[in-house]
């Protein structure tokens, strides 16, 4: 953060880093009930089930609040470790709602609404004194009609900047059943973000069902992402809704260029069955689709990643994400190879700033002047 002005209040700082994937957690599962009505309020809400076991039980161990509450549930710690720790000027929150695992579409819509009312009250309300938390409208794609109503209800909220769907879905997101949702989102200038979800859901996590190990499950996220990506383009979603934008979060990106080469090549011969595609498939990608960086691929030779960035036109499509507080968190200063300044600025800030209409400067707040660590202490941690 640099100072944009030297004297006079309020001081403005340049926006340099936008983190597109931070997860706000409930302090307790029952917190959600307060925002629900009967008969759903008294029911057990289906929750994310960890059948594949990630390192650290899925979270950064140093992100656990001292009071024993879940990682990502304490806004003060998020301020310390994300706003101050990595210097994020804005974060885009992605609630881990696991909505897609709820088979009952009405119950799913009720739970989605509760997540939204909860986050408006907390992370976007009383926790958001600095205005640097932005978030995503949780919708239940298995209930398109209610999803549209939820978008209509919340569009225009100053801190809700996109809608959110899970990677596990009843069908690929280009299918017509979802079009009313994308129409509503586009009409309100809200991108749709897709985030990886629980392995338990309407479809298994890979095209060949359930793998054996977490290692496979996590490596293979791109298989579902590819399917949604190709579907969205092939079904003409971006011809039908020219203002619609889609964001793929946490599914990797190094696979992007080869799959688009393949689709472009196939389109030359197979175009006639989808004549609404007026341009090469990869051109829709550049204009309508963005990818978050985390977990960034780490080839042995870091130059290879830069070559991949060039092939995928990272300066237009990539947006930084840390995935705080999860175990595979990426630190913006350490996770990337050395990049040209302009490319770095596009990935760390400008692509997200343009997509979410965020300002180029923001008002400085007290978090800008407080240091995150106390250097005077000698013994800084002990445990038995």
């Amino acid at each position, binding site marked *: 953060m640099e100072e944009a002005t030297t004297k006079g209040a309020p001081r403005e700082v340049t926006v340099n880093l936008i983190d597109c994937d931070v997860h706000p957690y409930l302090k307790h599962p029952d917190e959600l009930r307060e925002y629900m009505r009967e008969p759903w309020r008294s029911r057990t809400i289906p929750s994310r089930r960890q059948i594949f076991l990630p390192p650290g039980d899925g979270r950064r161990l140093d992100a656990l609040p001292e009071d024993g509450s879940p990682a990502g549930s304490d806004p003060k710690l998020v301020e310390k470790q994300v706003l101050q720790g990595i210097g994020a000027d804005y974060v885009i929150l992605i609630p881990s709602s696991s909505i897609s695992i709820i088979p009952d579409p009405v119950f799913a819509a009720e739970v989605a609404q509760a997540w939204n009312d909860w986050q408006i009250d907390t992370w976007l309300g009383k926790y958001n004194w600095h205005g640097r938390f932005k978030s995503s409208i949780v919708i239940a794609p298995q209930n398109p009609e209610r999803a549209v109503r939820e978008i209509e209800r919340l569009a225009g909220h100053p801190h809700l900047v996109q809608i959110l769907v899970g990677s596990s879905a009843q069908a690929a997101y280009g299918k017509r059943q979802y079009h009313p949702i994308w129409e509503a989102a586009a009409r309100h200038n809200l991108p749709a973000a897709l985030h990886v979800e629980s392995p338990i859901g309407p479809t298994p996590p890979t095209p060949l069902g359930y793998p054996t190990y977490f290692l496979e499950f996590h490596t293979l996220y791109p298989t579902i992402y590819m399917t949604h990506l190709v579907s969205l383009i092939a079904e003409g979603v971006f011809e039908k809704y020219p203002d619609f934008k889609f964001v793929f979060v946490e599914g990797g990106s190094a696979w992007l260029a080869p799959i688009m080469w393949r689709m472009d090549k196939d389109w030359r011969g197979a175009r006639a069955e989808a004549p609404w595609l007026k341009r090469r498939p990869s051109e829709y990608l550049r204009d309508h689709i963005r990818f978050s960086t985390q977990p960034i691929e780490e080839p042995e030779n870091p130059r290879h990643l830069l070559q991949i960035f060039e092939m995928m036109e990272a300066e237009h499509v990539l947006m930084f994400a840390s995935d705080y507080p999860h175990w595979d968190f990426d630190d913006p200063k350490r996770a990337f190879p050395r990049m040209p300044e302009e490319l770095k600025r596009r990935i760390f800030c400008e692509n997200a700033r343009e997509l979410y209409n965020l300002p180029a400067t923001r008002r400085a707040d007290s978090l800008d002047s407080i240091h995150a660590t106390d250097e005077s*202490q000698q013994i*800084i941690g002990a445990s*038995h």
Partner: protein
Amino acid sequence: MGKYVVGKVSELPPSSRRIVRVNGREIGVFNVKGKYYALRNVCPHQSAPLCLGELTGLAVSDEPGEIEWTREGEILRCPWHGWEFDISNGSTIFQSKARVKTYEVQVEKAALARMIEGVETYPVTVEDEVVILEY
């Protein structure tokens, strides 16, 4: 090379650890089954506070499907991305050039420890043994 008094032996019982700042560097000192180890508190991967990680064992295998659990407590696992390090020499368990710096740890009588520069302020009695970090 300098010496730093980490604490009394009684303050670092088996299965405990202490992270200290010496010359501006954070170092984790561990007591694993009565043996002391010390490592930089910085993971060579993405600079996570490594010494906050879990001490675990080493899963080894001679053939797929067979797992043997060895070296309980001697593997330090990064609190972020789960990389495993051999606490005795700071190398990663998978083959790599990444390595965490390790330090020698000694136990000495307090009387001797007090003669070392900079430790006078540490409250020890003559009977105490202290844990000394060589850096």
